[in-house]
């Protein structure tokens, strides 16, 4: 059975007034329509919402008008805004319901509710430790500095510096012996 439509704007308008998107709608009947969509029954919800908003005509016409209205960008924006506003209010209803659920061990969803609560408030903590190691060797300048210090220590101990190796091509300049033929 379809719920009775209502058209009391004063009862559904939020205490702080409508949001920006709701205000952009053409009139209060449109705003009421958007608001009513959230309370509408699953079956015949559009028709119920448009009647609730105070639109009057036969059902077929109202159905067409409602279908057009929900496709209107302004209505879509207003629905999104209203959904966000209502979502913020949900904990007021959700928390007592959850409390009842976790206090009732016989309830079929009791275990799931407890598990969900624990996961949310006492989550299993996983940590990743990243160790960054600088594998760069010392700079050329630092190596040169240490080498110089080592050479200095060796020299102080009376050890002459090693003779550096000379790289090059060896050329034999010994005059060749005169051949027997000449």
């Amino acid at each position, binding site marked *: 059975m379809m719920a009775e439509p209502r058209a009391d704007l004063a009862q559904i308008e939020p205490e702080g007034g409508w949001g920006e998107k709701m205000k952009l709608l053409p009139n209060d009947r449109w705003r009421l329509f958007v608001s009513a969509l959230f309370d509408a029954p699953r079956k015949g919800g559009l028709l119920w919402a448009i009647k609730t908003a105070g639109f009057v005509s036969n059902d077929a016409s109202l159905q067409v008008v409602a279908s057009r209205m929900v496709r209107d960008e302004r209505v879509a924006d207003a629905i999104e805004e209203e959904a966000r506003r209502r979502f913020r209010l949900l904990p007021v209803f959700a928390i007592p319901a959850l409390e009842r659920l976790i206090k009732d061990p016989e309830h079929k969803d009791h275990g799931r509710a407890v598990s969900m609560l624990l996961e949310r408030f006492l989550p299993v903590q996983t940590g990743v430790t990243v160790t960054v190691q600088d594998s760069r*060797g010392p700079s050329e300048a630092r190596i040169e500095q240490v*080498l110089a210090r080592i050479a200095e220590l060796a020299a102080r101990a009376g050890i002459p510096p*090693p003779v550096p190796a000379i790289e090059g091509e060896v050329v034999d300049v010994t005059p060749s012996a005169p051949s027997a033929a000449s």
Partner: protein
Amino acid sequence: MSAATEMVEMFPPGYRHALLMVAYAKRGLADASIGDHARLDILEKLHELTDQFFRERVLAVIEPMGETEAEMMEQAFSLDPAGDKSRRASFDLLTGEAFDHFVRLNPSLLRAIRLCGELRRA
């Protein structure tokens, strides 16, 4: 290039490092203040260095480092970044350009190199 220089040049870097570490460790062993556990630990590590090429006889001919060489070692170790267990930087320096200085300061290193060659040929 003299025969001795050539022998040193041909000596593998890993064994060059072992020679230096043995001389350095022996200096540590000569320190009277070192504890028994540390002494035993050093001796065990020294013997772990031996193999078919670097034999115990070679280990025996190496004389402890003097103060100058020890300071040179410390200088080389200062190149190793903190926490770098590979000690790659000091290894490269000690077995490379600095090695000649150690051989000149501690002639027992050259004797050890020569003995390695003789034992291998025997």
